């Protein structure tokens, strides 16, 4: 008789736990005892604890610590990152992360099995960290406490800072890259990539309002992507080969843009020379 009661109980508990109606781990005793379902719940858990919110029909309990599903997912994914080096970008990592929050491992069911959301979450968090770092640096320059970096150095440092965030996860990053390239994920991953590159240029001081806007971002995107790939293959100490590659690519880009402007001014000079010659000849 008891065995028949428990399955629906488990479902309710799992969904209640996932709904995240409270932050105070009131659900903890239930979640951690989900394994011990068919035994009586450990003594000491029941009497003192308040009744489980949604199970006892208090689902409308919306205190200040009511959290949205989005925020809950955010917390689970953040907690899951710790387990990625061991489990990869998988449901196992998410399950482990959920466990540390005192949630049921069924929480992993909220997400795709290929770890898409986990990877996108990670990329988004890294981009946010990068933006904050660049903003802080910009403040220092504005306050006069730091020198304004030349463009090539700025770009190099920004890309290096962003790529360094991959280091703890570098073993499993190739797997993440392939997931990011799945057709389903391409809109999101492309969006994250372009806004990161735009951010870097913005803080580098780019104020172009013509086609240069696109050229610069395309060039930086290429630099970032190729450097990322080099990093995957790099086994040198401290990834020094990668940073040297990055330095060379940025230098190439600077050279190309200098050459382009030289070509343009040469061209303009030639045109003026020809016009002058034409006027002379016509006279």
């Amino acid at each position, binding site marked *: 008789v008891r065995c028949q009661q428990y399955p629906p109980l488990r479902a309710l508990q799992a969904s209640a736990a996932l709904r995240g109606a409270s932050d105070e781990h009131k659900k903890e005793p239930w979640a951690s005892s989900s394994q011990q379902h068919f035994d009586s719940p450990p003594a000491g858990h029941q009497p003192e604890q308040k009744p489980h919110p949604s199970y006892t029909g208090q689902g409308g309990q919306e205190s200040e610590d009511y959290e949205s599903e*989005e*925020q809950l*997912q*955010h917390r689970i*994914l953040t907690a899951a990152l710790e387990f990625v080096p061991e489990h990869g970008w998988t449901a196992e990592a998410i399950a482990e992360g959920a466990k540390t929050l005192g949630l049921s491992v069924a929480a992993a069911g909220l997400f795709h099995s290929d770890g898409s*959301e986990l990877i*996108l*979450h990670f990329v*988004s*968090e890294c981009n*946010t960290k990068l*933006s*904050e770092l660049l*903003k802080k640096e*910009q*403040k220092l320059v504005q306050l006069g406490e730091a020198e304004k970096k030349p463009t090539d150095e700025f770009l190099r440092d920004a890309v290096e800072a962003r790529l360094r965030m991959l280091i703890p996860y570098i073993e499993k990053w190739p797997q993440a890259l392939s997931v990011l390239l799945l057709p389903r994920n391409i809109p*999101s991953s492309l969006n994250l990539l372009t*806004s990161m590159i*735009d*951010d870097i240029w*913005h803080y580098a001081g780019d*104020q172009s*309002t*013509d*086609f240069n*806007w*696109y050229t610069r971002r395309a060039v930086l995107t290429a630099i970032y992507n190729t450097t990322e790939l080099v990093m995957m293959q790099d086994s040198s100490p401290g990834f020094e080969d990668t940073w040297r590659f990055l330095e060379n690519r940025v230098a190439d880009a600077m050279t190309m843009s200098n050459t382009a402007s030289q070509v343009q001014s040469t061209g303009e000079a030639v045109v003026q020379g020809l016009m002058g010659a034409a006027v002379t000849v016509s006279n």
Partner: protein
Amino acid sequence: GAGAALRPCSTRVALEGINKPVIDRIIRVDHAGEYGANRIYAGQMAVLGRSSVGPVIQQMWNQEKDHLKKFNELMVAYRVRPTVLLPFWNVAGFVLGAGSALLGKKGAMACTVAVEESISEHYNNQIRTLIEEDPEKYKELLQVIKQFRDEEQEHHDIGLEHDAEATPAYSVLKTAIQLGCKAAIFLSERI
């Protein structure tokens, strides 16, 4: 989505709380429009610069240059991406200006009337949109667009004063140009 934070930004304009997609479009298309108008007047000046209407066109061109400058500033402040079609408008605008000028002074004025009428209507639509959104939040932008709309309207009237309507095939020319403007606006808003 989960983990998406407000983009931190340190430009003069507060980017939080504005309807970014709407403002993006508005600034992108207006920037493209002023850029195109600049090129049209440049084309007209290339042909009619030394004629009697040269000074008039030059003066209108100078105002368009100011408009473009203002939108360049707004574009940087609001972190808006320029339309990818700029190189195309560069050429198309110049060709339209020069082409209409080759039809004579009245042809150039007819082109001006057509374009400025399109732009005024377009600015009016944007003013309506912004007022519907939140006139307080977008006060500065509304002021700019209203002022520019008034100046474009002036250009339109100057064009009429200079016998634009006397151009041969005036209504055909005007319709064709306005159709082109509509297409340009549609595309520049999106790409």
